[in-house]
């Protein structure tokens, strides 16, 4: 599921080493190592209840990570993922609770509003010719402010039981059914980026904008498409979180939706998606989210102090990006 092994960044010593050097394999090993360690250290970690809770959190964080990944690939970023997620969810909550629309229609409405807000980010980025950082910084405040003013910060907490029960399904190995949905989204994204024209165009435009433009890639369109996709994925993550919480909460992603930023960047960046654009790894993002979820859950189970988990995740992000930098540096040296 990855570009990285294919494009030869993995080094010259044959397939085994190449596989080990890829960030996906490394992440998988580390994650499995932590799972074994935590299961050994605390019985609570591998209990059916905990694996169910863990996979449910993982399912949501994976989609939040995807939402950032599809914008990172253009060389941009989207600070408004949380704000868009909350806005979309409030639209969905309103449609279900106030307008009384069928669940499916409400879900489609929520996804469409997420995509629309994302597309607006893309259009503004293209039209103003500025980095998406400043555009999404502004729209994060704009969207969140508009949402709070319109909802008066009130939650929709009388959602249909059928919608809420979607999040409660358990399946084989005590995993949350939502995890399979996230995997399904991952497969679709992989297919989009590696087997469709627009996906290839997005990768080309992200890797080298001017070269792509010269070869006839509609660069502006790829940027708008990626932002719209990011908005739709943020809306999807928001819907999953809403089903889990049993209510559409304006505060579910924190002030301005900023609580989503760390998981949103951690998963793709740990998974080897470059901030400069042009490469992405769907499997890496999934594994990045898995490692973060396993670590935070394990640390909570160990009762080392729940208040320190956030500081720990920050250190991991810092070490991970620094190591990735070092690895790229060493690879480049060896090639010379």
């Amino acid at each position, binding site marked *: 599921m990855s570009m990285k092994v294919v494009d030869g960044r993995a080094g010259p010593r044959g397939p085994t080493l190449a596989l080990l050097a890829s960030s996906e394999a490394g992440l998988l090993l580390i994650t499995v190592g932590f799972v074994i360690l935590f299961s050994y250290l605390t019985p609570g970690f591998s209990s059916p209840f905990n694996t169910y809770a863990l996979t449910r959190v993982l399912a949501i964080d994976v989609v939040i990570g995807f939402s950032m990944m599809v914008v990172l690939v253009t060389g941009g*970023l989207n600070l408004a993922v949380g704000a868009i997620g909350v806005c979309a969810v409030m639209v969905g909550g309103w449609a279900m609770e106030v307008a009384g629309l069928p669940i499916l229609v409400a879900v489609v409405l929520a996804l469409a509003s997420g995509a629309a807000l994302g597309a607006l980010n893309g259009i*503004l980025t293209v039209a*103003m*010719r*500025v*980095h998406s*950082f*400043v*555009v999404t*910084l*502004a*729209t*994060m*405040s*704009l*969207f*969140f*402010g*508009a949402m*709070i*003013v319109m909802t*008066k*910060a009130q939650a929709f907490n009388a959602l249909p039981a059928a919608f809420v029960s979607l999040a409660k399904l358990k399946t084989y190995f005590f995993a949350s059914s939502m995890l399979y949905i996230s995997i399904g989204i991952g497969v679709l994204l992989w297919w989009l980026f590696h087997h469709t024209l627009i996906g290839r165009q997005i990768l080309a435009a992200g890797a080298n904008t001017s070269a792509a433009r010269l070869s006839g890639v509609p660069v502006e369109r790829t940027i708008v498409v990626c932002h719209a996709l990011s908005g739709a994925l943020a809306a999807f993550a928001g819907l999953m979180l809403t089903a889990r919480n049993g209510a559409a909460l304006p505060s579910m992603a924190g*002030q*301005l939706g*900023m609580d989503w*930023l*760390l998981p949103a*960047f951690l998963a793709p*960046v740990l998974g080897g998606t470059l*901030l400069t654009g042009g490469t992405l790894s769907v499997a890496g993002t999934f594994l990045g989210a898995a490692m973060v979820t396993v670590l935070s859950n394990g640390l909570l189970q160990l009762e080392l*102090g729940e*208040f*320190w*988990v*956030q*500081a*720990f*995740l*920050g*250190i991991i*992000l*810092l070490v991970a*990006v*620094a190591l990735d*930098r070092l690895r790229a540096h060493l690879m480049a040296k060896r090639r010379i």
Partner: protein
Amino acid sequence: MSTTMQLLRTDWFGLLVAFLLGAIMLGVAQPSFLSTYNIYVILTAFALSVLVALSQMVIVAIGQLNLSVGAIGGLAAITFAGAMDLWNVPIPVAILIGLMVGVAGGALNGVVTHVTGLNAFVVTLATLSIFKGTNIGITEAQPFYDIPEAVKTFGNARFGFFPYLLFVSGAILVAVWVFMRRAVLGRQLLAVGGNRNAAELSGISIGRVVVAAHVLSGTLAAVAGMLAVARLQLGQPTIGDDWLIISFAAPVIGGAVLAGGHVSVGGTLLGVAIIMLINNALVLLNVNPYAVQLLLGALILAAVALSRFRDPA
């Protein structure tokens, strides 16, 4: 070029006109705007926000960004308050400890950014988490209440409409203005932000400048955090949580170029002033105070669009 045209081309002139027009309109619409107490309230908020904006501005000057401004401010705030509450250290020592937190936090950002060559965005996102996480780890999300009376009094004392807090912020504002205009290091910040290669070739030590900018940014954030403690009369762990947008909005409205090399202390000051005016107008005119988020977002977009229009690249 005529004087009018020259004035129109500066970063601050249009903003000053906008601010004065807004203030006059608000004064006419709502006379209580000009009451001594209301002006005091605005100036107090201004005193805190202007430091937050300057803290971001010095990083924007070198063409980077700092997501951890609020987290450093919050951590400095709770160590300042915690030192006085738990260890009963004298106030000047507590201030020194708070400043050291700012210096250390900024130095960490600067050194990591420079040594690894990583994007400052990821680095400061990670350190945001580290600082905020340390804050929550130390306080367990509970405020420090036992602050010396002198600090509490200072945070809420005033001469008529002039809050004492503004003495600190005003002095720092002047110092930063002189620093950016006259000091060698201040000019070097802009040189590095404007053209890194040219700066390096002309003998500027990039690493020194980058670390210095981050240390300055951290220190300014720490001062803002400590003033917030004095103002709130307690060491609230949530200090700094809502600084991100305003820290970018004010310099950007003030004409700063996010790519680096061009910032304006006067413009940033007026940017903060305009935001404070809008905030106050929403309160006085009984509009939903949350609408300020919406307006801030729109204002950033408008400022960026305007700078594109003024200087089409």
